[in-house]
């Protein structure tokens, strides 16, 4: 069965989640014995097309259009639908990034497709597509099967590894997309902090702070440790609700779900809804004053102590290591 994967990009750059989706889709192409079609959307796509080489794509469709420079649900939808028609793909794959969480259901509705969102594993056995996906913010894992075709699958960022893969040759094909009057919701501008902050869902290391940090000003210690490790700053719901940190940093059920290689929880007791958001991290370190804090049951390594004292020492020791 032929597969179509959408490779996410922004501002002329491939997103890491885009190549992860390619690797997830390549696995499905191998299992189904089909061709892997991929789609890039935007302007000046040639440079990005070169970067896609070596990831196992058989056929790359390039949807270039000035109106597709920025994301819009309707513009990207039209490009996807054109690519589905061109490729004859029965299975559409993309990342469950912010963009994919919006575009996936949009496309699935138009295709009258089965929709399997935010998957952490995908299998195809005897003609049946089966995925696993965290539900209840990771407190349960659902095994879900498609019972109809076509199907749209989104893959949770960092659940699939972008892996180089040789194929005979990647064919490139321009894809024409007709957008006449289709784009009604249009992006006017993009607001971002200087230097595009690393997001908790994309970082290999996340250093999070909770109420035990005692005040917004002490998050400087968290920021220093995160910077030393090249990671992102996270926060518990309590400190976001107290307005010490922005909501974009919140890890947990009403915030973001993260699976970094290293998660360091500082002054976080470990409420169920927080643990749900970070329990799939590879290695968890907890620093907390209270030896009975539930976070220690989930952590691989714990230090019982005041985060305000432990953090500077940890930052210093890690700096010396490098």
């Amino acid at each position, binding site marked *: 069965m032929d597969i179509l994967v959408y490779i996410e990009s922004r501002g002329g750059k491939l997103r890491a989640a885009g190549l992860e989706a390619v690797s997830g889709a390549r696995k499905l192409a191998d299992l189904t014995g089909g061709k892997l079609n991929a789609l890039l959307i935007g302007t000046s796509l040639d440079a990005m097309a070169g970067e896609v080489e070596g990831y196992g794509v058989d056929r790359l469709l390039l949807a270039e259009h000035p109106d597709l420079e920025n994301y819009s*649900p309707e513009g990207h939808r039209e490009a996807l639908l054109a690519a589905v028609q061109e490729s004859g793909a029965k299975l559409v794959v993309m990342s469950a990034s*912010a963009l994919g*969480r*919006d575009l996936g*259901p*949009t496309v*699935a*509705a*138009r295709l009258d497709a*089965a*929709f399997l*969102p935010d998957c952490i594993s995908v299998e195809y056995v005897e003609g049946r597509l089966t995925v696993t*996906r*965290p*539900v*209840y*913010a990771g407190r*349960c*894992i659902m*095994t*879900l*099967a*498609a*019972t*109809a075709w076509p*199907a749209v699958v989104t893959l949770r960022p960092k659940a699939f590894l972008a892996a180089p893969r040789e194929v005979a040759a990647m064919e490139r094909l321009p894809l024409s997309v007709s957008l006449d009057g289709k784009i009604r*919701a*249009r*992006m*006017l501008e993009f607001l*971002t902090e200087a230097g595009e*902050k690393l*997001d908790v869902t*994309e970082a290999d*290391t996340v250093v999070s702070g909770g109420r035990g940090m005692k005040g917004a000003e002490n998050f400087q210690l968290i920021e220093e440790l995160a910077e030393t*490790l090249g990671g992102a700053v996270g926060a518990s719901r309590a400190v976001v609700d107290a307005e010490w940190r*922005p*909501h974009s940093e*919140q890890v947990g*059920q*009403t915030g973001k779900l993260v699976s970094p*290689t*290293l998660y360091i929880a500082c002054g976080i007791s470990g*409420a*169920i809804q927080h643990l749900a958001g970070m*329990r*799939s991290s590879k290695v968890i*370190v907890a620093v907390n004053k209270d030896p009975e804090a539930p976070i220690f*049951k989930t952590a*691989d*390594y*714990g230090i019982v*102590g*005041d985060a305000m*004292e*432990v953090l500077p020492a*940890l930052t210093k*020791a*890690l700096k010396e*290591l490098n």
Partner: protein
Amino acid sequence: MNIAVLVKLVPDTEASLKISGDRRYIDKSDVNLVLNPFDEYAVEEALRLRESHGGKVVVLSLGGDEAVKALRNSLAMGADEAIHLVTPTGLDIPGTAGALAGALRDKGFDLILAGKQAVDDDCGAVGPMVAEMLDIPHISTIVKLDVDGGELTAHREIETGIEVFRTSLPALVTAQKGLNEPRYASLKGIMMAKKKPVTTIEPEAVTARTEVVQLNYPPTRPPGKIVGEGVEAVPELVRLLKEEAKVV
């Protein structure tokens, strides 16, 4: 301005969950069920828009008898009317969206709001799907909304910042935390909610395109260790992270 809000009743985020005997559902008999937190932001935003632009707010929920609680909670916050869609058989995500779209079609709503996702199945798909089925534009995961004449401007939160979108009405938007601070229902609101109309609709059965095979608890993490106390434990922690876990 006529506004519709899609709401759902979900287990409390602090509840511990028990998987049913057939492993396909969460046993909700002992779980405290609440209005989905993201739907609270949607209801609040709708009420604020009604306060500034006039019109009415209609809330819709699809589910069994429990869905009525989500509707009553929304009515108690200040919504005017409610529609209860009784769960049809063969329900999956597109089926849910289809039933809701069916109830909303040709009803003259200028704006439809929903939470960005329900914190039970975490799909976040029903909002955009309903918009597509109604053929109206949508903007998801918004943290700011301005409605002006026949247009709206919304701030959509993504990984690296905020995308500012503009579109014409009618449109659908989904609410992210940060959009507003939801009000608590007043005692008067709760009393009045009991008298507000709740219409019941029975959507047609649909053919599901997906099937839940089973639910499992996530793999338990192997027990960790307390490295030590205070600053003295730092060198040992760094050694373990480097030599044992190999992550620094």
